[in-house]
Every structure is written in C-alpha cells, then in structure tokens.
C-alpha cells in the first residue's frame, strides 16, 4: 500500500478531516478551533471546509465544551471536543466523570455518549505549571471512560478515527512535544486501529519497559543505548491506557522477569502505579527483581526555568540509569 510521511499533528488533522468528510454527524468544538485552527493547528482548515456550524469556536468555558458535547452526543451527533491544554480540563471534570463516564451504566445502555475529548498533554516545552501536565492517571481511574495516548502518526491517526467511531467517551491524549518532533509513515487510504491492544515497539529479553507518549520514544532511545552494553530491552507502547492490554504486558514480564515502568506524570498514583500493582499481583512468581519506576517527581507542577524543567522531566539518560540498575539486580 502507498504510504506517506507525516508528523503527529498532521495525523490528528487528517483523522479529523477524513472523519468529518465521511460522517456529517461529526462536529468539532473548543476554544480557538475555528479560524485560528487551534493553538497547535490541529483543526487548521476545518472551519473553511466544513463551516462554522460543525466547527465551533466555543466560549472560554470547559465545562460547557464537554457538557454541550455530551448533550449533542446524546442527541445523535459525534462531537470531538478539544480542551486547549490538558491542564485546563479540570473545569470539565464533573461533566466527564459524573456524566459522560456513567451515562451508559446508569441507563443500562439506553443512552450512550459517543464523545471524544482530545487534549494536548505533557511537558518539556517550557510550558511551566499549566501547559505541561499529564492527566491520564486522573481519567484512567474512572470506569466507563476509554483513555488513549498514542505517540506515532500511524497510531494517532488510526486510533483517533476509531475513537470518533466508538460509542463511548474517549479521552484522547496527544503529547504536545511529539506534535512536530515525531514523524512516521501512514497509509494513503482509510484505516483504523482498534482501541485496546498495546504494541511491542521493540523486542528484548532482559527487561520489559512499559511506556506511552513521549516516554515511549525516550524508552526506545534508552533501550538502544543499553543494547550496546548487552542489555536487551523490550519496549511496550501501551497506546491505549484504558482498557489496558494486560495480556501483552504480563506476557512480556513473564518472559523477561524484570520491569521498568516509565511515565512523566508525578510518581504517586501515576498510571504506571497500576501497572506495577497488576504485575505484583498477577505475575509475582515470574519476577526476578523489583518493579522499578522512572517518573516525574512528586512536586505540584513542572517549573518554567530550564534547569528545573529539565530536572523534572524523565529523560533517556534517567531511563538508561534505571535499566542498568535493573540489569545488574
């Protein structure tokens, strides 16, 4: 099949464009998603093509962005809501957690909410306190939601299209540092990828690394580095956080016996804590060492000034260091 090379932001844009073209029930709403095309240009060109009725510049009010989208979804539309930065999703948390996630369950499936909430997350871009946050942990904890966090153009495009077609609310997380950094091939024609399955992005025998987002790329870098020292690392890209592909994770752990979980969110109760807990409960007998974590620190936010931001972010170097420790265990 013919392919082309695009970056992550183009992948988002193509998915939105193609789904809007295919299905007139799809609408896009959020702050500055219209003529501005979104602050990262994820929605660039959409309003020109599909008009202001389907591409809505909303008031600056996140609860209404999600709440209106829920109502529209209940009444037959397929809204894709954008929260400008994940850090500003909190005013919408009641609508997401109290409403979107519970509607199918509380009505025994009489109503469902085919809603996608897209939002850029993650740090390392001089965004400071409120343009750097990770929010997958908060939403992964809420049954009824699906949480997707792919990090390559191929995965993003295929999973965003699936998310739009999904009958349930999907929190779709796009690591903003990867938007232009990460390029890759995608097929020319339409394709989708299933929500759920993880990818083994690199095969290895000694240690399993579990990551997603920017950290997945850093983990691949680190794996490459330590491979020269004879340490063979398997890197699992979760892609979908909920529902979690436990099988792929546990199978890899059973093979390698050692685990490193990497995430950018602060350590305490970041999503990787659940991965550790699952492994400690379900694959204990296969473990040859402690389940280690490389994470953001437990401080309230990512600082702005460069030295402190660098100190906050997990890096390929920090991952390498942990891998060496684990290998030596």
């Amino acid at each position, binding site marked *: 099949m013919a392919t082309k090379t695009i970056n992550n932001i183009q992948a988002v844009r193509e998915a939105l464009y193609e789904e809007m073209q295919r299905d007139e029930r799809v*609408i896009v709403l959020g702050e500055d998603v219209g003529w501005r095309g979104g602050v990262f240009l994820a929605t660039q060109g959409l309003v020109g093509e599909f008009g202001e*009725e*389907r591409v809505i510049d*909303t*008031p600056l*009010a996140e*609860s*209404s962005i*999600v*709440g*209106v*989208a*829920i*109502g*529209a*979804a*209940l*009444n*037959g*539309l397929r*809204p894709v809501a954008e929260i400008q930065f994940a850090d500003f999703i909190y*005013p919408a948390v*009641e*609508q997401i957690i*109290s*409403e979107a996630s*519970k*509607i*199918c*369950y*509380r*009505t*025994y*499936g*009489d*109503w*469902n909410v085919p809603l996608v909430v897209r939002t850029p997350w993650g740090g390392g871009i001089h965004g400071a306190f409120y343009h750097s946050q990770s929010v997958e942990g908060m939403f992964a904890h809420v*049954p*009824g939601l*699906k949480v997707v966090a792919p990090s390559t153009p191929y995965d993003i495009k295929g999973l965003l299209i699936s998310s739009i077609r999904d*009958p*349930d609310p999907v929190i779709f997380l796009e690591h903003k540092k990867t938007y232009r950094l990460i390029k890759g091939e995608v097929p020319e024609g339409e394709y989708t990828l299933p929500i759920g399955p993880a990818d083994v992005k690199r095969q290895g025998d000694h240690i399993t690394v579990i990551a997603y987002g920017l950290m997945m790329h850093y983990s691949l870098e680190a794996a490459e580095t330590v491979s020269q020292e004879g340490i063979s690392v398997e890197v699992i890209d979760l892609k979908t956080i909920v529902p979690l592909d436990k099988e792929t994770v546990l199978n890899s752990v059973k093979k390698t016996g050692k685990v490193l979980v990497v995430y950018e969110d602060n350590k305490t109760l970041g999503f990787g804590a659940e991965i550790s807990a699952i492994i400690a409960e379900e694959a204990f007998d296969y473990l040859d060492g402690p389940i280690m974590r490389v994470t953001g620190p437990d401080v309230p936010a990512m600082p702005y000034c460069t030295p402190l931001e660098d100190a906050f972010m997990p890096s390929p170097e920090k991952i390498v260091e942990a891998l060496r420790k684990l290998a030596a265990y």
Partner: protein
Amino acid sequence: MASQGRAAVAAKGTKKAPPELTAEKLQEIYYKMSLARLAQERIWLIHRAGKLPYCISGDGQEAAQVGSVYALRVMEDYFFPYYRDIAAVLALGMTVKELMLTQFAKAEDPNSRGRNIATSWSYRRLNIFTHGSPVATQILHAAGAAYAAKMRKEDKVTIVYFGDGAASEGDFHEGLNFAGIHKLPVIFFCENNGYAISVPLKKQSAIENIGDKGPSYGMPGVVIDGLDVLKVYEATKAAADRARKGEGPTLIEAKVPRFHAHSSDDDDTTYRDPKELEEMKKKDPVTQFRAYLEKKGLWDTTREEEMMKAIDREVEEAIDYAEKAPFLPVEELYSWVYYSER
C-alpha cells in the same frame, strides 16, 4: 406575559384557557396533576413504612411541571426533567407502575433498572434524557441537544428543568450563555421553590427573580406563578413558539412551593417555620385547578370521586407490583460499563 429584557411577574388571577386546550385536555391535565399528587403522597407513606431507603417528591410543583409538558410535543420534543419532576414524567407518559418500579429499584424500572437512585430519569422512548444527581449538569446537555436539533433543522424544542439552587452553579451560566450565543431552540425552566435543601433564595442570589438573569444571556426572562397551570402552559407555549421560529432560548422561572422536606433525609423544621408551609398549602395548585374546572362546569364531585378511586387503585396496584418485582441479578453489576449494540 413574557417580557423582553427585564422580567415581569405575571398578573394574578386565572385566565381563560387557550382554544387548543379543549375540555378533555383540561381534564387530562387535572388528572395528571392529581395522579402525581397521590402517587407522591403514597411514596412518602411507603417510605415511612420502611419499604424504601429514600424518597423525594415534587408535590406543590405539579402545575409547573404538567403545565409546561402540555405546552410541548410529547415524544417529539426533547425533555430533560430533574429529580423533582415526578408530575412531569407522568405527564410525559411514564406509568405509575414504572414510577414505583423506580422507587423500589427493581429490574423493570425503565430509568436505570434499579441501578440508580429513585427519580434519576431516563426513558429513551419518551425522549426523556438521562439525569444523574449532580445539580445543573443537565442544563449543558440540553444546550447540546438543542444544538443538534438546530443543526438538523428539526422543528423540535428542548426543555430542561432545574431548581433555584441550580442557578448558582457555573453550569447554569455556561449553558445559558452557550444557548444565547447560538440562539438555540431551548427552554430553561426553573422551578423556584425558594430553597436549595435548607438554603433560602436570598442566600443563593442577590436578586429576587432567577428569571431576571435571562437578559444577561440575550434571552427573555419570564417569571410566572407556578401555581397556575394555565399561566405555566401559556408561558411555555410562548417560549416554544419562539424557539420553533428560530428566535432562540427563553428562561422561565415558575414560583412554586415545596410541600415536603427536601427529601426523606431532610428535616425541614430546622430551617423553616411550619406556618410558612401551612400558608403555602392553602394555595395548592391541584385544588386551585380543580376550582377553575368546576367554575367552568368541567368538573364536579362525582367525577372527582370516580377519578380518585381509579387513581387510588392504579397507585396501589403499582406499588404492589413493584414491591414484588425482582431486582437485577447480581451478575449485572458488570454490565453496560461500555455500550454495545443490543
């Protein structure tokens, strides 16, 4: 009655019914109000008898609820009732049996199959949208549903109900703001019973009328006497006409009494004078409407007795049925976390 800009309290006194409200329709309205009243009183009784862990009712608010529903197109327009709207959902076509199945949280409950607390409405066939417990969230859903209707160029109105306390939440502001900007075909119907649990209106709002908040959002605010079912009908009809003509949303505030404590978990003697309640009960919307019908020669004691007997039987049978009906089986704890085609 609707006033653009500043809202105005409607003049007192029962008006002539509009022509489309035939004698039969008027009697039907009265029947629904009476049915709701009796059902609610009975619910309190069975709660007190220890058969229900919890109950909540909207008695005193029947005129507001039934009058507004009758001004709209049942099973066509989009309805977002809130937990106090027992009379509204009965007017929309939920049966008393279904209402009692909800109270007893039984598997046949059409709202949640007994999974959610009583009066958390949802009835897809009747265009009753899903309602949880968090106050005011449904206001945004209604704006979204109206947006979808407008996009599809449907001749359909959305109505959303909420209390006076709900107007304090951010979601009230954001919902009305969104609807005003997009001139959506939606009616925001506030049942102002003067209290949010124990908190009186003067601690919820610096101004007396919730309706007066409409103009901030570019929509008329209409303040009406919620005891008068015909006035409620008329104001709702006017708002619906406006919506259908593409003129946008309306905020209606119906002043109503709350005849019971907030819910069975509440004790209202701690914060309101029993005399206040006594005074309110003298202006009962159901008896008021009965008097109107009698004056018009559309009702009399014989009819009343017959109707009440029938209602009584219906309610008793419903309770009986619901009490004996089965719960969802335990395995259903895990069903419908996600949606799948039936």
